């Protein structure tokens, strides 16, 4: 046996050894990397917990968010303090049936927080999905078709040069009436806010996706696909989109965070949902007038907004590290 042949058999056996190890899928690697980022794991758990509490909570909890007591009940139930007040002020008005107290109309704070969380998270998710669809569409089209690239990127630059918050505020006021009439007061505002946030936050995604598509378009597997006559549409859907999934996922998490903050800011400034339809921002806004007497009503919605956004930001941070093959495995 010559040396070369020996080498070959050796190589062969080592390859077999490699193959003999249990196969590890890509997602398993990603999960392992994600697990090693403690902040991301914590953020992910916290976000899941908040989502779960907000979705399941109202079914388990005994008080109704919309219930307004009348007559004697109103006086008896209004302005209740949270039960932890017992620690330093046992004489305060409180009741175990209302763990976080009630507001000045006697509505239960915890129930309203859970209801408001549903709305805030729903707006955040829906706006994120809209922004993601728009952003990926523009990014992929601009990256893949050279003719449209210049035009679409100029459009992106123009959108980035718009003063977004003032324009969202203006549009939220101007279009509210007509949408409320056609879809109903809550649904109309929901659609309006989701559309406004979605339309004004797709630009970063589009830029990132375009950059990645430009790089992937030049790779051999795309050339191979094109040389066997694959249509552009299926090249995009089969070969390019799966490869730009990771930046899209990262901007999805960051998109939820900005959408929640923008929605809360709108509600806080009084341009969001109607007053009887609580969101976290609206609850915060309602409580500001009486925060000297009842600071807890300001603190809880604010803490929930901040915690959600913080957890989503950490989640995105970990996801970015986990999905980047250059960092993974180090």
């Amino acid at each position, binding site marked *: 046996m010559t040396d070369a042949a020996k080498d070959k058999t050796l190589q062969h056996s080592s390859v077999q050894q490699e193959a003999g190890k249990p196969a590890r899928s890509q997602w398993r690697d990603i999960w392992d990397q994600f697990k090693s980022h403690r902040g991301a794991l914590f953020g992910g758990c916290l976000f899941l917990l908040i989502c779960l509490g907000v979705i399941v909570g109202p079914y388990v909890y005994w008080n109704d968010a919309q219930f307004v007591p009348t007559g004697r009940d109103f006086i008896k139930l209004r302005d209740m303090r949270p039960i932890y007040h017992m620690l330093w002020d046992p004489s305060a008005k409180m009741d175990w049936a209302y763990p976080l107290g009630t507001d000045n109309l006697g509505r239960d704070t915890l129930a309203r927080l859970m209801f408001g969380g549903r709305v805030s998270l729903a707006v955040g998710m829906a706006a994120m999905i809209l922004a993601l669809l728009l952003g990926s569409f523009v990014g992929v089209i601009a990256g893949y078709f050279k003719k449209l690239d210049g035009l679409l990127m100029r459009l992106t*630059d*123009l959108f980035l*040069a*718009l*003063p*977004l*918050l*003032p*324009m969202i*505020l*203006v*549009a939220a*006021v*101007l*279009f509210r*009436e*007509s949408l409320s009439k056609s879809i109903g007061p809550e649904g109309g505002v929901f659609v309006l806010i989701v559309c406004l946030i979605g339309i004004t936050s797709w630009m970063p995604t589009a830029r990132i996706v375009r950059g990645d598509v430009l790089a992937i378009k030049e790779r051999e597997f795309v050339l191979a696909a094109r040389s066997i006559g694959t249509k552009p549409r299926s090249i995009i859907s089969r070969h390019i989109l799966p490869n730009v999934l990771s930046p899209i996922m990262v901007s999805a998490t960051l998109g939820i*965070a900005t959408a929640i*903050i923008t929605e*809360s*800011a709108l509600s*806080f*400034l*009084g*341009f969001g949902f109607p007053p009887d339809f609580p969101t976290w*921002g609206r609850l*915060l*806004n309602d409580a*500001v007038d009486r*925060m*000297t007497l009842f*600071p807890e009503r*300001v*603190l809880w919605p*604010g803490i929930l*907004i*901040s915690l959600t*956004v*913080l957890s989503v*930001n*950490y989640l995105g941070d970990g996801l970015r590290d986990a999905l980047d093959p250059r960092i993974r495995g180090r």
Partner: protein
Amino acid sequence: MLTFTIRRLILSVPTLLFISLVIFMLLELAPGDPMAQVPLTVPPEVKEKMREALGLGQPAHIRFWKWLVQFFWIEPQVLIDHYFGTTFSAGDLRVISWQTRSPVMDIVIQRMPQTLWVVGTAYVVAILIALPIGIYSAYRQYSWFDQMGTFVSMVGFSVPPFFSGVLVIVIFSVQLGWFPSIYDTTLVVDSWDSFVKQLQQMIMPVMVLALQITAQLSRFMRASMLDNLNQDYVRTARAKGLSEYVVVMVHVLRNSMIPVVTVIALGIPSIFGGAIITEQVFKVNGIGQLLIGAIQANDLPMVQTLTFIFAVLIVLFNLIADVLYGILDPRIRYD
């Protein structure tokens, strides 16, 4: 460089025109009626007269053109007249607010100092805090200081100004009673006492704004320093026997400041936009509050002008950032 600057300046004209068109069309297509608040008892023909008096009688393109002329031709003339005592703009119609019936730009000029004081101070404070934090966390990467910095900037990203503002009001003015919760615009600083008062009322809004800006800037500074610390020229500098202070503070810092300076320039207009919420929380009588009030009162000329001023600021500082980048970094030559 000069040709690049001129080209960018010329290119920004169509951008601004397009943005002004977008803003105009947004207000135009909106179904809201500026006459909605007029009592129903007013007869329709009087209402029609009122619409014409507000300049709503003509078709859209003529009104757009008139607004452009007023904003770009007549208002600068008014400014020149104001400074040099000339009479270019005598008799010309200016952009009039529907709320106060006085020229929009006069109100903007009245409101400007408050915004500039609060936002400008916050920006300077944030830069002064963020740069050292960024430098030190990059120099001692993954130390406890760096971890703390990462966490604090994460919090700064996540806590929205309408919560951090309310939080500092609860802590510092309700519980501790140190600072006033409302910004008093009428305060005239002419003695030591009033100066202290001015400082006290500025601390909280500046703190809230500075937290946000610091979070972003320190992250950016850190990343930029980290990029440069591993470069070959740093090793060369150390091999030459330069002291560590000179290596970091002269060689590395000067190179890492290039992107940071452009980010600082880019952030200035967004601070005007972000200050809307902070101004609302602390009742600072500035540009942001003017915009909110104008939107609520359906004062379209005011809203249009203010939004457009924000847009001009964004385009202007984008241009400044691009030019600065070219001047600071000799590797980048645009032509």
